[in-house]
């Protein structure tokens, strides 16, 4: 379980998150929607441990541990996964090599032996097939020269391989055509189970037709201003954020 309480975070002295409260239980899928610049990626980054952001108040309790005290790699070892809004290109590093390092780092942290090359490749191929990822991408350099869609698929693929307890998907649907969107959504749905927590961040209601969330939250100006069931997404689609933004401005 992850329990975020009164979370405030700043970047370069500027407060971006201004008191977030959010609890996700195993098995639940939550969606966060909100206008540009409202702090969605900031929340995702703070969960994953990006150093640029400073938590100035509040707490994140993750299975009884204070997540904010942990290094980004320790969070990953504890099962936190972030699918980046903008996956990073890393020329000179092959996707396979990178993934193998990642898998073995996770295993080492859990006190398990390294996977040998063959078992690793078998596992990777299986997961790639599950998320309909072209296995050729494995041989390429990490995200380097990938199309937008390929980058997003690569994130879902990594998620499938790393098998996280908490997956935060930051706009994994943005900029995708409908076919790619279906692949991404199918991938996420395939990974959905009673132990996993999933936080989907999106701009677009469309994604939520394919990944049906249990809860929807609206983030405006660093705060969650409204929460509800999946129908809230439809409401937002119709009415837009304008009204909610106006409400928070007056608040």
């Amino acid at each position: 379980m992850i329990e975020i309480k009164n979370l405030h975070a700043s970047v370069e002295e500027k407060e971006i998150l201004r008191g977030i409260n959010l609890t996700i239980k195993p098995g639940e899928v939550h969606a966060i929607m909100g206008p540009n610049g409202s702090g969605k990626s900031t929340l995702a980054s703070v969960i994953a441990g990006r150093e640029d952001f400073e938590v100035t108040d509040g707490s994140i309790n993750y299975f009884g541990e204070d997540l904010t005290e942990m290094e980004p790699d320790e969070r990953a070892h504890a099962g936190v996964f972030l699918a980046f809004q903008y996956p990073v290109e890393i020329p000179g590093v092959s996707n396979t090599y990178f993934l193998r390092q990642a898998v073995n780092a996770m295993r080492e942290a859990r006190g398990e032996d390294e996977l040998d090359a063959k078992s690793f490749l078998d596992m990777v191929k299986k997961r790639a097939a599950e998320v309909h990822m072209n296995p050729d991408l494995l041989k390429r350099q990490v995200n380097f020269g990938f199309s937008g869609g390929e980058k997003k698929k690569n994130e879902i693929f990594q998620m499938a391989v790393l098998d996280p307890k908490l997956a935060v998907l930051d706009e994994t649907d943005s900029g995708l055509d409908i076919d790619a969107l279906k692949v991404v959504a199918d991938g996420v749905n395939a990974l959905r189970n009673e132990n996993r927590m999933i936080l989907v961040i999106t701009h677009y209601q469309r994604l939520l037709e394919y990944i049906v969330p249990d809860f929807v939250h609206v983030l405006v100006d660093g705060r969650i201003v409204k929460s509800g069931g999946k129908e809230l997404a439809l409401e937002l689609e119709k009415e837009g954020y304008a009204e909610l933004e106006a409400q928070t401005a007056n608040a």
Partner: protein
Amino acid sequence: MSQLMEAKDTFLSLFDEASSDRSGEPGWLRQLRQNAMDRFGEMGLPKATDEAWRETSIKPIVEGTFGRSSSSESALASDYYYKGFDAHQLVFVNGRFNAERSNIGDLPAGVKLTNFADAVTKYGEMVQDYLGRLCDWKERSFAALNTALAGDGYFLHVPKNTVVDRPINVLWISEPGDQAAASFARNILIVEESADVKLVETHIGPQGTTYLTCPVTENFVSANANVDHYVVQDDSTKAFHIGEQCLEQGRDSRFRSHTFTFGASITRNGVFGYLRGENIDSILNGLYVLRGKQHCATFMQMEHIAPHCDSHELYKGVLDEESSGVFRGRIFVHQTAQKTDAKQTNQNLLLTDKAQVMSKPQLEIYADDVKCTHGATTGQLDREALFYLRSRGLRKNEARALLIHAFASDLTERVQIDAIRDKVEELLWERLPRS
């Protein structure tokens, strides 16, 4: 008397001390040495104000006293430094040929491979013909010193149409013992028309020892010949390495060089190339991986004299702690060199705030129909990439090592000889920061 003058005297007396070594040499060589020493006497050591030496302080060299080492014995491991490297091996210890440790083996008919002193005896006319033809000792102090004091290096002559089956490895071990010693290896590589050879120059010395090594190689590459040339420098990090590669290429020839610098306190890699015939392909790559207070300067000058020649230089530096790097490169395109395709790139990765780099690739073009580019970048590790890797579970040091390796592997991957590639990879990994 200034320190620079005193240091000059040290080298002048080195010359005097070595006079008995020279007594058996032919007159022309003794004269050449004397002329070079006289010229050195006029020039002295480079001054801090010399443009070409502005960023490289030779103060520690000036302050050091370097004698001549009499020992040609080495306690260093008896293998040839590389693992499983099937090569023709020449070993020099403290600048002297060590025949016992060398293993030249069988060479194709007509190939001459021996040490400099032996070549002077056996192939005197040829040595006379080539020695000093490319190395402009009248202009450069250390080149003059090398010419005057030229000690053992290798002499390689590959006749026309001959393919040297296995690579040649020339290993210089500097192991001066108690007194800091200076050595001046002089090498001549002559590759005749359509011949083919792979050669490795390797420099090592026990960690913690101080010595000065000033090797000069003159590479003569004739028409349609192919040379793969490697320099692996893993000298003691208290040593000084002031080296020079001079290159002349004839038409349709290919020269590929890879210079790896891991060692020495101060390194200077001079490269002077003359592309004299048409349709030459000249590739010069370099990687320097420095830490502590190591300094490495690359000083390169490529002259395009004939049309339709390509020269591509890629030099990369990884600078940790308080190390510093210099890259000064100049491509000079003569009016006669139309259709030149030249590209000079220098990229540096600074791992700390205290590491420094001065990079100045330059073009000087007198022909109008050419494709010439140059570029320099200096940056730090990509924070986004680091975070990305860490978010996937890689520890900070692993993530850093992976990114640094990715930056440098561009150059290690170009090495065509497995044993060399394995070694430079090993040296690279060894030097990646662990914290």
